[in-house]
């Protein structure tokens, strides 16, 4: 008899557990909904702020959770940002305990999606917030993050001051409705905005008695010479599969077009791949591919394969960053070939002596590494103070140069990195030792300082890169950070998904010769059938709203 009772208890307990588990999800969702209604108006949001603050008080020692991707230069030596000297100093200076959470490498956006779907958000969430489906305004409306206007006005004197002094930045980081949603990553200098360009073997040029090429025709001659006289099997080789490098294609820019949207002379947004210039660019690349001037494995190249080709002399020219590509390759290659040297080449033009017009450029607010306060956050004041620190004087130095006396010294008023950074005793690369002390060499919620870059580039040719690559009118053609409305955004992303797939596929087919360029008009027609005009309409409306901000 007794046994039976025990069984009954176990059974009902299991049933109850199953039922509870069943309800759990719904409860959670209800909770989120409440958060939503509270943030419906910013007034209500701020009143909640006050009450939460009264309950917990700021700096009460409860840890804030902070989710961000861990930069690979950090993860090379640390498993958590909180373990780095940077992370410790940040907490010490602000007196706020932070528990950092990181997704597995390269899974940031997947994990972000899963976190949103799950509904359990950390207090602070670092992300490229303009990529939130439906735009940042939707993130506020969904009740995932707080609208920050009142919070910034109340708790963030440093950021407020910076935004008041820089109205152009202020415009970038707001939504069309005038709402703040994040503590932004800002490039503090225009020179920090051009980071990608052409580079080629200087020692080969000297040996062949050739000049750094500036036009398409000169490039052709140089690449042919690399192929015939230097035995390069892939004269021009770069990581074509990587989105940002494909987008910043200097040869497409030469024809006044690009792979993305750009701002035309008429002040409207245009789609590069549907324009005539794009056909000329494709013709050029198709010809070069046939002449084996471009890496034959173009479509499947990975970074390690490109690096191997550049450093071993199978390739003589590439497209990439001055720091992570050029610097790394030169340092690696001189070990075996002391003559190895790369030089930056300007964006090529069609006619000799012309000024290059388009080029790669980031917006000052490049939509990365920006932090929002989520509706899960209980101690908003502490979160706001933690964030505001970086926009003040002390925080600015810490985020860009680290700890005075340890990672940098002030020499004649110039923050100079110490040997801990430049000649790390543990043999770390400069990028890795920088990443232990600062965030200035990648991104995060602060204003980036050009003085970091001046010291990060150690090779002369790297230091020239900003000047050479920056000598364009790129800023004029750059689309500012516009956002479609919440309603349009789904339609827009549906259209662009299909268009981007089609563009990528056809671009490669034209270049590889699988598809004849006679079909270019048909290709443009298909782009229009996929809804290009509607996408342009949405983009241009967004631009109008942006200009009206």
């Amino acid at each position, binding site marked *: 008899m007794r046994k*039976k009772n025990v*069984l009954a208890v*176990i*059974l009902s307990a*299991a049933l109850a*557990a*199953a039922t509870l*588990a*069943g309800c759990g*999800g*719904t409860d959670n*969702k*209800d909770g*989120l*909904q409440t958060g*939503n209604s509270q943030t419906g108006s910013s007034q209500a949001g701020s009143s909640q702020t006050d009450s939460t603050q009264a309950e917990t008080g700021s700096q009460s020692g409860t840890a804030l959770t902070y989710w961000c991707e861990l930069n690979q230069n950090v993860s090379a030596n640390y498993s958590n940002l909180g373990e780095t000297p940077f992370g410790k100093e940040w907490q010490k200076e602000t007196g706020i305990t932070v528990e950092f959470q990181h997704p597995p490498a390269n899974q940031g*956006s*997947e994990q*972000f*999606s899963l976190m*949103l*779907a*799950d*509904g359990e958000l950390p207090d602070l969430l670092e992300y490229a917030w303009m990529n*939130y*489906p*439906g735009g940042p305004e*939707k993130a506020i*409306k*969904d*009740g*995932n993050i707080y609208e920050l206007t009142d919070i910034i006005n109340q708790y963030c004197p440093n950021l407020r001051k910076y935004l008041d002094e820089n109205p152009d930045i202020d415009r970038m980081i707001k939504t069309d409705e005038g709402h703040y949603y994040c503590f932004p990553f800002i490039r503090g200098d225009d020179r920090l905005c051009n980071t990608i360009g052409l580079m080629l073997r200087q020692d080969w040029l000297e040996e062949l008695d050739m000049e750094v090429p500036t036009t398409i025709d000169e490039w052709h001659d140089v690449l042919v010479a690399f192929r015939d006289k230097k035995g390069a*099997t892939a004269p021009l080789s770069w990581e074509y*599969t990587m989105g940002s490098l494909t987008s910043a294609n200097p040869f497409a820019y030469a024809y006044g077009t690009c792979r993305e949207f750009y701002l035309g002379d008429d002040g409207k947004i245009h789609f590069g791949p549907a324009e005539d210039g794009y056909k000329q660019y494709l013709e050029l690349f198709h010809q070069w591919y046939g002449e084996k001037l471009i890496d*034959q*494995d*173009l*479509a*499947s190249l*990975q970074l390690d*394969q490109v690096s191997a080709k550049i450093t071993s002399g*199978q390739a003589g020219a590439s497209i990439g960053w001055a720091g992570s590509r050029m610097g790394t390759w030169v340092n690696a290659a001189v070990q075996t070939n002391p003559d190895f040297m790369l030089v930056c080449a300007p964006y090529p033009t069609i006619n000799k002596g012309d000024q290059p017009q388009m080029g790669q450029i980031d917006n000052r607010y490049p939509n990365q590494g920006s932090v929002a306060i989520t509706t899960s956050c209980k101690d908003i004041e502490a979160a706001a103070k933690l964030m505001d620190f970086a926009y003040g004087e002390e925080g600015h130095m810490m985020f860009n140069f680290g700890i005075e006396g340890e990672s940098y010294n002030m020499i004649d008023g110039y923050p100079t990195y110490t040997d801990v950074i430049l000649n790390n005793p543990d043999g770390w690369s400069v990028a890795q030792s920088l990443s232990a002390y600062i965030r200035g060499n990648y991104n995060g919620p602060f204003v980036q300082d050009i003085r970091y870059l001046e010291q990060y580039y150690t090779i002369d040719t790297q230091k020239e890169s900003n000047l050479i690559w920056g000598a364009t009118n790129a800023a004029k053609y750059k689309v500012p950070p516009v956002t479609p409305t919440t309603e349009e955004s*789904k339609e827009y*992303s*549906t259209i662009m*998904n*299909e268009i981007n*797939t*089609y563009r*990528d*596929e056809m*671009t*490669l*087919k034209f270049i*590889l010769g*699988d598809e004849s360029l006679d079909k270019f008009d048909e290709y443009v027609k298909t782009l229009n*059938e*996929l809804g290009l005009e509607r996408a342009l309409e949405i983009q241009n409306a967004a631009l109008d709203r942006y200009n009206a901000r």
Partner: protein
Amino acid sequence: MKKQSFSQRAKKDFRRNRALYLLVLPVLAFYIIFHYKPMYGAIIAFKDYSPGTGIAASPWVGLANFTRFFSGPYFARLIRNTLLLSLYSLLFGFPAPIILALLLNEVRNKKFKSVTQTITYLPHFISMIVVTGMISNFCLSNGLFNDIIVLFGGERSPLLQNPNLYRTIYVASSIWQEVGWGSIIYLSALSGVDAQLYEAASIDGAGKWKQMLNVTLPGISPTIITMLILKMGSLMSLGYEKTILLYNASTYETADIISSYTYRVGLLDQDWSYSTAIGLFNSVINCVLLVISNRLSKKLSDTSLW
């Protein structure tokens, strides 16, 4: 009347076998919590879901997500690619472990047999990202495969940029990776074949070949058919992992399958409702295929899953 008798019978059975019921309870709970409860979430396929508003409160949109997929420009291509890739995998990938098992079964040298077995099933344990990294390196125009092609008088070409070769590379590498592991189950089935049957067959004058056809294969046919039915049930659900690591825009034509498309559109763009709709469509097709193949097998060979 009937209902009462059922509940009476159930009670009686429960009293008699309560230990068994207790044993089955955790399994039952596992299925309810992890397999049946999440099915509730599938209704977001018919909604415009956003995590902020929650599953229940998100507005209904009817079949909009399905029509978007069916009327999309890539629908036909995705279905074709998925089916063809699955079909080829089945056609070439399914017999491979059986053949390997049959061959291994005939090997008399124990040491040779175990070494071969180990070597063939080792690739199963290599992570997918390493395998695809190896494949993409070997397929470069100066890679291993091209070296071999040149050795036989061919010309170098980037293999992973050729849409016509993609399926071959995909299927062949899958076979290489899974053939050893897949043969284990057949080897165990083979060891269950009665040795007397072989003896009888050889007395009747059957050689090795005839023995294999008339004794071994019928002996393991229930296993083969069960495996085949299970395979049929997952015909449409090719995983995206290998595809997104191997394909590029120049091979979309043959390489882009439903799951990789869903990955690009659904997961990266966080369009949950749309990807759920595609997933649901996939599951329904799989379920239908499973039922059909099970029926067929029941009719033709008396072996079936249920």
